[in-house]
């Protein structure tokens, strides 16, 4: 049986087998125009509006390579410690599919632009070096939507529609060498690699790397070998893995599935499998054993790419600080513990905290808001932290209002709530909700008078020297002012009124 649904529990699977993983990642470059024509690349335009004779493959049209995309690919290669080819060519990958206008994809085959690099990732406090096999440049296909079927897959659909807006968007493919020795950390290593890669792309500014929009896509290869053996098993390639968590789940699930098959004496089919976000399971796709012959040959419509060593060195010298180095430097600057760093990293909050610090917020405050109130709200609404409708600049404004005494923490939380609810900027929310701290001394005085009268016992205690009792009075003032009073000022005024000094 090739489609057995049985799985072996993870611990047992790991006791008997050793996983080898590999990752193929596609990154859509954020260039203004497509790879081989002048059409825009922006996401979300009405279908088939970002098209021209070239990306529709009309008869006679020819590709012109996007220099910016070549530059970005070289920068990615350099950031991944790769060797940059002095001379290489595009190749045609020939296969028929309606969403590929030319029925061949312009890609690279045996002459990739970047080869033999690595990326170090940290998992469980240890550094794992992921070797990079190659980084090459190609073009994206159009997007097919299969209509009328139950699954949205082509099987069972009545008809399909194609949007060519995506056809020809520059795509960088990053392929790792097989990663051995990760043992039971294989799922975490896979996730850490994609996370680190994504951060690297962000730091280079070459892509918006949004997995949910498909600008970062990941195929996960997994094979198992029985403990004590050295020959790699047959691998499967899982596609449609569209979030960091899914990368981890896909590896985990595939280890459990393959282990069950192998334990029963079965055979792993070399195939493409589809990951299902809802169940975490994979289902079989195309079998690679009836492999397509792509009939690669050098693309005759384009000149070879021949980056000069001087240019490559110039690009190398302009590379930004690597994310790992930057993280370590900022950790030191912010005075954050390893544990807190790891927490920020796992919550995908690091970049947000950094941007907030850049916007002028003390590191401790930035971390407090993102990892506290905002993380809680993201969790409640099931959105990614980065997708919360609030900007680091808005947080900076809230923090500034707290620092100036115009807001206290409680009010600040309400302001954030308002911003998240789409009520406008922090200042607009303060205005509309009337959240400013009561700083009018007259109003505060009259509230204090009421509180002292209503809590005569507590007032007497304070008068008699039990200063700790002032807390209850301040609490009363805060309550009476519905949180808008400046607690510090209230405390000062109460003590003054009761003739006590600290």
């Amino acid at each position, binding site marked *: 049986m090739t489609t057995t649904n049985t799985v072996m529990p993870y611990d047992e699977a790991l006791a008997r087998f050793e996983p080898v993983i590999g990752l193929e990642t596609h990154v859509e470059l954020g260039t203004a125009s497509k790879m081989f024509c002048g059409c825009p690349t922006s996401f979300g335009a009405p279908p088939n509006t970002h098209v021209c*004779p070239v990306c*529709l*493959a*009309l*008869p*006679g*049209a*020819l*590709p*012109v*390579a996007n220099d910016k995309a070549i530059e970005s690919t070289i920068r990615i290669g350099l950031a991944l410690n790769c060797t940059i080819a002095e001379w290489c060519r595009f190749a*045609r990958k*020939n296969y*028929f599919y*309606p969403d590929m*206008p*030319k*029925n*061949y994809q312009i890609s690279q085959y045996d002459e990739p632009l970047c080869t033999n690099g690595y990326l170090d990732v940290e998992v469980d406090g240890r550094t794992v070096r992921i070797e990079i096999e190659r980084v090459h440049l190609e073009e994206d296909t159009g997007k097919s939507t299969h209509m009328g079927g139950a699954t949205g897959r082509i099987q069972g659909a009545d008809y*399909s529609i*194609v949007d060519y807006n995506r056809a020809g968007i520059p795509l960088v493919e990053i392929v790792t060498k097989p990663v051995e020795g990760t043992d039971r950390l294989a799922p975490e290593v896979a996730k850490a690699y994609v996370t680190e890669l994504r951060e690297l792309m962000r730091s280079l500014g070459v892509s918006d790397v949004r997995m949910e929009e498909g600008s970062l896509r990941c195929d996960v290869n997994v094979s198992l070998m029985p403990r004590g053996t050295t020959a790699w098993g047959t691998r499967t390639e899982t596609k449609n893995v569209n979030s960091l968590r899914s990368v981890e789940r896909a590896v985990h699930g595939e280890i459990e599935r393959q282990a069950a098959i192998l334990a029963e004496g079965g055979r792993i089919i070399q195939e493409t499998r589809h990951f299902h976000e809802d169940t975490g399971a994979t289902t079989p796709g195309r079998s690679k054993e009836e492999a397509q*012959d792509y*009939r*690669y*040959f050098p693309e*005759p*419509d*384009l*000149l070879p790419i021949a980056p000069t060593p001087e240019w490559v060195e110039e690009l190398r010298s302009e590379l930004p600080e690597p994310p790992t180095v930057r993280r370590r430097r900022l950790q030191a600057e912010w005075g954050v513990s390893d544990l807190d760093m790891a927490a920020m990293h796992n919550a995908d909050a690091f970049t947000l905290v950094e941007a907030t610090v850049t916007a002028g917020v003390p590191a401790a405050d930035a971390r407090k808001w993102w990892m506290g109130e905002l993380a809680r709200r993201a969790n409640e609404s099931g959105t990614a932290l980065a997708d919360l409708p609030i900007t680091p600049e808005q947080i900076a404004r809230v923090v500034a209002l707290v620092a100036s005494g115009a807001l206290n923490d409680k009010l600040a939380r309400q302001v954030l709530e308002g911003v998240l609810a789409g009520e406008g900027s922090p200042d607009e929310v303060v205005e509309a909700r009337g959240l400013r701290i009561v700083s009018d001394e007259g109003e505060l005085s009259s509230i204090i008078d009421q509180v002292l009268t209503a809590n005569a016992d507590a007032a007497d205690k304070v008068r008699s020297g039990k200063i700790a009792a002032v807390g209850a009075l301040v609490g009363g003032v805060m309550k009476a002012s519905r949180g808008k009073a400046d607690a510090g000022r209230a405390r000062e005024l109460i003590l003054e009124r009761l003739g006590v000094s600290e």
Partner: protein
Amino acid sequence: MSLTRKTAAELGALIASGEVSAVEVTQAHLDRIAEVDGEIHAFLHVAADAALEQASAIDAKRAAGERLGPLAGVPVAHKDVFTTKDMPTTAGSKILEGYRPPYDATITARLREAGLVILGKTNLDEFAMGSSTENSAYGTTHNPWDLGRIPGGSSGGSSAAVASYQAPLSTGTDTGGSIRQPAAVTGIVGMKPTYGGSSRYGVIAFASSLDTPGPFARNVLDAALLHEAFSGHDVMDTTSIHSEVPPVVEAARRGDVSGLRVGVVKEFGGEGYQAGVLARFQDSVELLESLGAKVVEVSCPSFTYALPAYYLIAPSECSSNLARFDGMRYGLRVGDDGTHSAEEVMALTRAAGFGAEVKRRIMLGTYALSSGYYDAYYGSAQKVRTLIARDFEAAFHQVDVLISPTTPTTAFPIGERADDPMAMYLADLCTIPANLAGNAAISVPCGLADEDGLPVGLQIMAPVLGDDRCYRVAAALEKAFESRWGGPLLKEAPAL
């Protein structure tokens, strides 16, 4: 003298001076088309209204005092492999029947900019694959010298149109000889520029690394004028060359060969060549010597392998280039009745839309690129290509130009080779090396074969970007031949 008998240069001068209007010139050619094209079938589409409109725009410019270029108002017949936004573009294939492109090829645009009046689109072998136009899905074109014979191919509609005075100029594309061979067998001038010297943008691709647009004319100067009008770098074609267009018009005007070193390619001649072709070739050699050229024999041993290498490279590229014709976005669509999958519609469309020769080459190319065969076929052919380029390089250390017959035989009868692809492929034996190496090469008429009275062409090959040398030698020979014959060869063509 009738306007259709004049050269393009003469017509351009008459229009520029106002002696005749562009409309008159265009109308004269449209009348000639109406008169003879029923028998020749050079045109797939005649754009009479658009042509007259364009001509009257030229006349208006002149009337407004604008300076006109040398070919403004001169009619041109355009091979139906160049996209034209105001005319159908079929590449001679059923799969593009009725297709109207939304954009002009760079060369189409440059013809318009130069003020040339496009009379219509000319017939060709389907997707430029063939040497006779018999592979056109829209019927065969006939040779004006003998209507029972082929006009050459693939640009046979363009050669026949010029040879039958339906147009003074026409465009072609040359992938393995598709300009030079039709020029040779219809007694006119046809030039394959240096690869990359003329833009391929909007040329429906056959074999990308070989396809080269070029001009046809009845004389060398006219060919050079058209060459100059549409050549030069194009940002839309990254394989187009950045340097200046070689001084082809100046070379065509100069036309002297004294002191020039001319190499006769040893490998082209002898067995398999028609006696009349070899005799006219020998005349040309002697004529060149009499004009002061130094003629020597040069061996290019790898040229023997050019034909088999070509028939691996060209089909390989075409198998990929023609993949886009799948019925999904434009052109013919077969089987779209709700019972077939997209994949089946693609297959049915291609089965119905492509002709036998196109299918043969797609299959050859698909096979040659297959995993496990790539090195033996496509890989080896690329090595041969390098060797041929080296042969040229070595030869051009010794001589300034190389010469050979353009084709082994004169025009063959329609149907004679239609079922024998190998015999058909041999028509391009002498022209293919220049395509594989990217060199410039021209075919110029050098007389009639004694045994059949049909035109013979002489091929002159020059180094990459040495296009001007082709024109220089061709013009010298043309002058000498005309004084010997008492006029251009074409006056001998049987009147239609």
